[in-house]
């Protein structure tokens, strides 16, 4: 547990020590700010952040891989993975610690957008309904965690950050495509699985303020599976 916290703390603080962390935070804050200022904070509009969460979620497609690409690839390149894996730390603590650090960074990245909620509450009459806002943040967080777990897996496969970034990006774009096409073009036997994989309808439910347990379980399950794959990939040097 202590070693897990050590790994997580180092991962999180490293993101803040590197330019990539600040660039990601700044870009994310800027783009979500633009959406908020132009789409949400308009006279006469209903006090809802629905559109905001749509954009905040899909913006994670380029952002999450930028956070996760370093996780293992950079350590494999620099050789620090060898010092880490020969310390008395279990593979599980390494995987969870690194993922935890990335997830904590995601929260740090989302935190500035709470300003928007404050502004909306201050300037709109009647007050915005907090239910959909809480559900919206939950959906962005769950989506981001799933993206980061996938990115961690791709990062564990290579010692090249760029490759890890591209692999995660293409994978997330593929998920987006599946969501948008809804699988109607696919052969009949594939339509069921593809529709299960579609993310957009689930996000729509969250945006309505509905926290459906099945959606939560869906995101957490995918996150868990990617972490298991990462764990296996990290241990694979033992039999490769």
């Amino acid at each position, binding site marked *: 547990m*202590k*070693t897990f*916290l*050590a*790994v997580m*703390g*180092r991962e999180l603080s*490293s993101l803040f*020590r*590197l330019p990539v962390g600040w660039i990601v935070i700044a870009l994310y804050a800027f783009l979500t700010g633009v959406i908020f200022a132009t789409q949400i904070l308009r006279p006469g509009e209903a006090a809802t952040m629905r559109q905001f969460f749509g954009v905040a979620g899909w913006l994670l497609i380029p952002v999450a891989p930028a956070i996760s690409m370093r996780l293992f690839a950079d350590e*494999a*390149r*620099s*050789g*620090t*993975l*060898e*010092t*880490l*894996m*020969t*310390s*008395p*730390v*279990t593979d599980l603590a390494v995987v969870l610690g690194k993922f935890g650090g990335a997830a904590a960074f995601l929260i740090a990245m989302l935190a500035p957008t709470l300003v928007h909620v404050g502004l909306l509450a201050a300037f709109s009459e009647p007050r915005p309904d907090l239910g959909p806002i809480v559900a919206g943040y939950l959906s962005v967080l769950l989506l981001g965690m799933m993206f980061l777990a996938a990115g961690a897996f791709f990062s564990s496969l*290579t*010692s*090249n950050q760029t490759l890890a970034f591209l692999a995660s990006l293409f994978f997330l774009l593929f998920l987006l495509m599946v969501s948008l096409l809804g699988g109607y073009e696919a052969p009949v036997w594939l339509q069921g699985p593809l529709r299960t994989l579609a993310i957009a309808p689930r996000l729509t439910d969250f945006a309505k303020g509905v926290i459906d347990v099945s959606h939560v379980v869906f995101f957490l399950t995918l996150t868990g599976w990617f972490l298991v794959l990462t764990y296996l990939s990290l241990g694979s*040097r*033992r039999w*490769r």
Partner: protein
Amino acid sequence: MLSVHSVSKRFGGLQAVLNVSFDLRRGEVVGLLGPNGAGKTTTIRMISGYVPPDSGRVEVDGHDTLSDSLAARRALGYLPESAPLYGEMKTADYLDYRGRLFGMPRAARRAAIDRVIGRCWLGDVRRRRVGELSKGYKQRVGLAAAMLHGPGLLILDEPTNGLDPTQIRETRALIRELGREHSVLLSSHVLPEVEMTCDRVIVLARGEVRADERLAELVARHGSAEVIIEVSDPPGGPEGARRVLAGAAGVAGVARVERDGQQPGEAGWSRWRVAVETANGSGRDLREPLARAAASAGLVVRELRREAVSLERLFASMIVSQPGDDERTTVHPAADPAEGRR
């Protein structure tokens, strides 16, 4: 402290390490020598638990590196080749992180960090980012991190790589000192380093142990201690000098040495490399018989010294004599994909 029981490792079609066994007692400093591709790094990685052996086993301080892996890793301080570090961290923060990975409580961590910073002369760079440091400082940060938790066994893969002469001298002295509290396994290419620091050497070649003994014994058995002598030419010219030197007791062969390989040397003087007759007491000091022979023939000796045995020559004499080696490749495989790309 460390026992390696006939470990083997194969990468694809290449036998990187074959049936390697050796032991390290507490407080012993042992050099692991061998040409590139001899299997040193693979052996070290099997000891550190980074790659498991295909067969055989390794015990660190009585803990099996596979079945009791965490305890084995706790007893071990490991500095991989090229001292990998997190460039964005400050020296003290990095050491603190390493201490946390080894489960050291805060107070013990602080004391240990102060201690290793003092011993590795890192006081000046305590608050500097590791990525900005010179190669020598980085190497010392890696060394400090390896010894931070007071491990029983220190494994140092080429610890003086990239250091300047002063730092090399200081690091060797430090390793010698560390040998009093820790067992040290040191891999190196540099013979003087091994001579200064190690009680014993293990020579690997093509994945197998070729020697495991005190360095002096190894040199006596394999290294021909040659003598360089410069004498005035007798009336018979340089050929006469050669005959005189070859007549001294214990001389196996005499060869002319040209100065720096090109200059023909001063007229009236000639330099010779005299090899020892290995059959009759190898490693014998031939300086005295040579000086006597020269004096009785009326030659003036202007220079007379023993030539230090180079590690390369030692390896060559050990490896060449092994039959059936030639068809095997000596290319060392990357033990992980990262190494190949480095």
